[in-house]
């Protein structure tokens, strides 16, 4: 029996090591193959505005941030005549509706008539339903989404107009970046997750035609969006789902990442909201995995990549459960040295991830004109394992909720912390 347990430990350790190694490879993809990053950069010169855009801004209980977001989109460096802004709210969210309406009136007084409020009063009250509802009113050639707290770059529409006019592409995903890396103990890692996802990993997905899209700053040809019947309203990660659905059609998705043009966001303000957000993402991936759109992808590599990404929350849940069990078994069973060494392999990979995060922090702060202190690095070293445990807990929680049939949308609160960091200003990071 003991030898079976040892064999199991060795096998699980090897599988986890391979998996962690692969994730590491994806995180470092563009640094490992720098030639893949260059074509993904934004064009240095823009073509004349040609395409019209509809920017949908789904908002729920976003009184604190909605007005600034509307203003920023409306005042972006793109002709008002080619830009339609649709703020979509459910009828019960009177606070956000009031804030949005006030801002729209204010803009109209200044001569901006391209922002509208779209209100729905049917079920379900969630983001994909709001998006689908707003899609009915969309008039632009291209439909895009900005979340209520987003700080989009004023030139992002010029970037996408140029890409879509010069390349034969119907879907563009531009960069999204959390900025408040020093707000709390977990924000550094959360910020870096976005950094590695959009700057590196997504390029790998796009290259092989298996791209789970992000929740905002993605741009669709309206025709394509209508032809696929918009977003899946029963999915908690409708963004990833639609990306894989479009990928399965063989549609090329262009990823544009340029540190200069990222849409800036904030990390969830409390650990609770962070866990709820992560739980929702995990559940969404699990739902998409079960839905099976990925099976329709034409190549084996596409299917593998999609399945691998969508199944990741299960892996994370298993890691969460396996780690304490492995430790207990190693101590209680006095595992042979060879077995114990194999069990250490995933730990080695975990340290490699920490090294990646620390170097990534340097890259991130440099790219955005920020600075960090050694205190931040020490904090990262100390909080690395707790952060992994939080992620594992969120994955286990997602599995539990999924098994219990709890699929309701757990809302993430936004305070606008990313807006406290003026562009280009150096922020000293403290522990």
């Amino acid at each position: 029996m003991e030898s079976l347990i040892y064999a199991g430990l060795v096998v699980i350790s090897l599988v986890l090591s391979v998996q962690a190694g692969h994730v590491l490879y994806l995180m470092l993809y563009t640094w490992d193959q720098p030639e893949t990053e260059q074509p993904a950069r934004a064009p240095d010169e823009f073509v004349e505005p040609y395409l019209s855009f509809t920017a949908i801004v789904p908002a729920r209980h976003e009184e604190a941030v909605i007005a600034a977001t509307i203003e920023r989109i409306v005042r972006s460096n793109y002709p008002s005549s080619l830009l339609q802004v649709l703020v979509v709210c459910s009828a019960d969210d009177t606070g956000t509706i009031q804030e949005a309406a006030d801002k729209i009136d204010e803009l109209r007084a200044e001569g901006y008539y391209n922002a509208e409020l779209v209100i729905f009063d049917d079920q379900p009250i969630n983001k994909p339903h709001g998006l689908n509802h707003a899609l009915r009113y969309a008039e632009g050639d291209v439909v895009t989404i900005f979340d209520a707290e987003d700080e989009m770059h004023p030139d992002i529409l010029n970037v996408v107009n140029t890409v879509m006019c010069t390349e034969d592409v119907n879907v563009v995903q531009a960069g999204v970046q959390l900025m408040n890396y020093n707000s709390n103990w977990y924000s550094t890692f959360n910020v870096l997750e976005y950094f590695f996802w959009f700057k590196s990993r997504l390029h790998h997905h796009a290259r092989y035609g298996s791209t789970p899209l992000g929740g905002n700053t993605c741009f669709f040809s309206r025709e394509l969006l209508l032809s696929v019947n918009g977003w899946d309203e029963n999915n908690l990660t409708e963004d990833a789902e639609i990306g894989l659905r479009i990928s399965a059609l063989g549609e090329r998705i262009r990823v544009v990442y340029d540190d200069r043009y990222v849409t800036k966001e904030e990390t969830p303000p409390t650990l609770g909201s962070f866990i709820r957000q992560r739980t929702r993402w995990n559940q969404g991936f699990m739902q998409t995995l079960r839905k099976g759109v990925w099976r329709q992808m034409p190549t084996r590599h596409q299917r593998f990549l999609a399945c691998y990404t969508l199944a990741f929350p299960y892996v994370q849940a298993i890691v969460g459960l396996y780690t304490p069990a492995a430790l207990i078994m190693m101590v209680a069973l006095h595992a042979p040295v060879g077995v114990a060494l194999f069990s250490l392999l995933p730990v080695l990979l975990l340290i490699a991830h920490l090294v990646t995060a620390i170097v990534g922090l340097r890259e991130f702060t440099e790219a955005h004109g920020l600075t960090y202190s050694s205190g931040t690095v020490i904090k990262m070293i100390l909080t690395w394992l707790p952060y992994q445990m939080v992620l594992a807990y969120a994955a286990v929680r997602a599995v539990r909720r999924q098994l219990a049939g709890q699929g309701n949308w757990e809302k993430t609160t936004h305070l606008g912390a990313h807006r406290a960091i003026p562009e280009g200003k150096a922020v000293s990071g403290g522990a």
Partner: protein
Amino acid sequence: MAPDVSMSERVALWLRRPGNGLLLLSLVSGAVTHGVNMFRYPLYITDEGIYVQQAWSVVREGTLSPYTYFYDHAPAGWLLMAAWANVLPGQFQAFGNEINTMRVLMLIAHVISSGLLFGIVRRFGGGALGGFAACFLFNVSPLAVYYQRQVLLDNLMVMWLLLAVWLVARSRERVVTAMAAGLAFGLAIVTKENAIFFVPALAYMVHRYARGRGNRRFVTSFWWFALSAPIAMYLAFAQLKKELIPSGFNFDLDSPPANHVSLLYTIWWQINRSGPEGRNLFLRLMENSWLARDPYILVLGAIAVVGVLMLWSQDRQRRTGYLVAALMALGYGFYMVRGSILLDFYVVPLIPVLAMNVGLLYGSLMKRVPRSARTAVTVGVVSAALLIPGGYFITRNTERQLEAHDLYHLAVTPLQEEQIRWVRENIPTNSRLIIDDDIWTALHDREPYFPRAHSHFKAASDPDVRDKLFRRSWRNIDYVVVSNKMRAAMERNNAGGQEQWILDAIDLHGRVVWELHRGDIHLQVYKIGD
């Protein structure tokens, strides 16, 4: 390449690429010079026996040593040997006997190392001719062939080291290549710790090559990380066995901790270990052993290091590899002259590094020779080295007749096999034997087994063997299987009197029951008592 191209056409295409013909020639000549007569020359030595017995222990007993493993060397080298034996149909007997089987692994390691050396010199800017010149020395120098045939951790370390350098030289762009290079170098260190003296050169190389690149932070960080990983696993191994730190945190070299062995204590002991003759030992080995086998590679190599440094100083931007090659030689040279314990085969890692410098210098000189004359000059140099008596291939024997170098025709290991055969046929298997390590595996892995045959080192110093089996008394020894080399080693190892009881057993209570004398090789078997 089109799928309908046949294998022979592919080979022909590959050979037509500039320099690949010379690469192939280097690989083949390396295989020939090391492979011909390698089972018969040189003599099996104690260290070969020790590493083979430890690999045997990994395969047969699942432990790192048949005796108490006291962290004298990190185990990656003999783990690789164990893996090699494990995949062969006849395991340790696949090529006749245990040491021969491992000598084949050394041959493979050498051919791989040759290819890597060629690639490094070419990448560093020495061109294909420079690569060929480096490989020629590495393949044909009697000093190189003599030690590189032997089953030594250093030979495997050299392979990992050259792989690490080649990976960085080959691709400066990729992070995974830097990781692989770091890992290879880490494996070099846990194969033979003296690889650590190459750290400054390789670290400089990695940092210099990454400079100015967008991924430099990841490249350098992961090179260091991957380099540390095998070392960390080695430390973790010791810790899991509760043998990392000495009991009572006792680092007193005069009174070693008695409870258990300790990795950190052994490292501390190694650092503080100095040879009785200090730098004189280096000079003695240089004069008696290394220069006697091949003065050219050492002298030319030393000159080449200076020359390569001068060439580097003329064009620092484009000749980083020149500095790396020189730093590698200087780093390891420092290790050798600093006055620590030295064994003659410690010169092994210096050989490819000197060859690398000679290759770079030769390649640079050839660029000043008209293209049409380069081949003729190179053929001339190689022919002279091979054909002039006293050179690399032709020598004069004691009768002043010309013949091939001893390396290629002398048969000395059959004498050792004869000794083993006599032991098998004439000594009862339950006898208590004191032997040299070079025949240990032969007596433990082949029937009839001699489970109570132990090396004189263990009989002199391992408490389990010395105090429990032999109880430090000649009365508990049945036979001593000895050679003149073993006798000399026993006398060298007798500074504290630990081998005296065995020497007394031979001299006062032993009688010769078998002996064989050929030249300066003297093999004997003593029956002890009655």
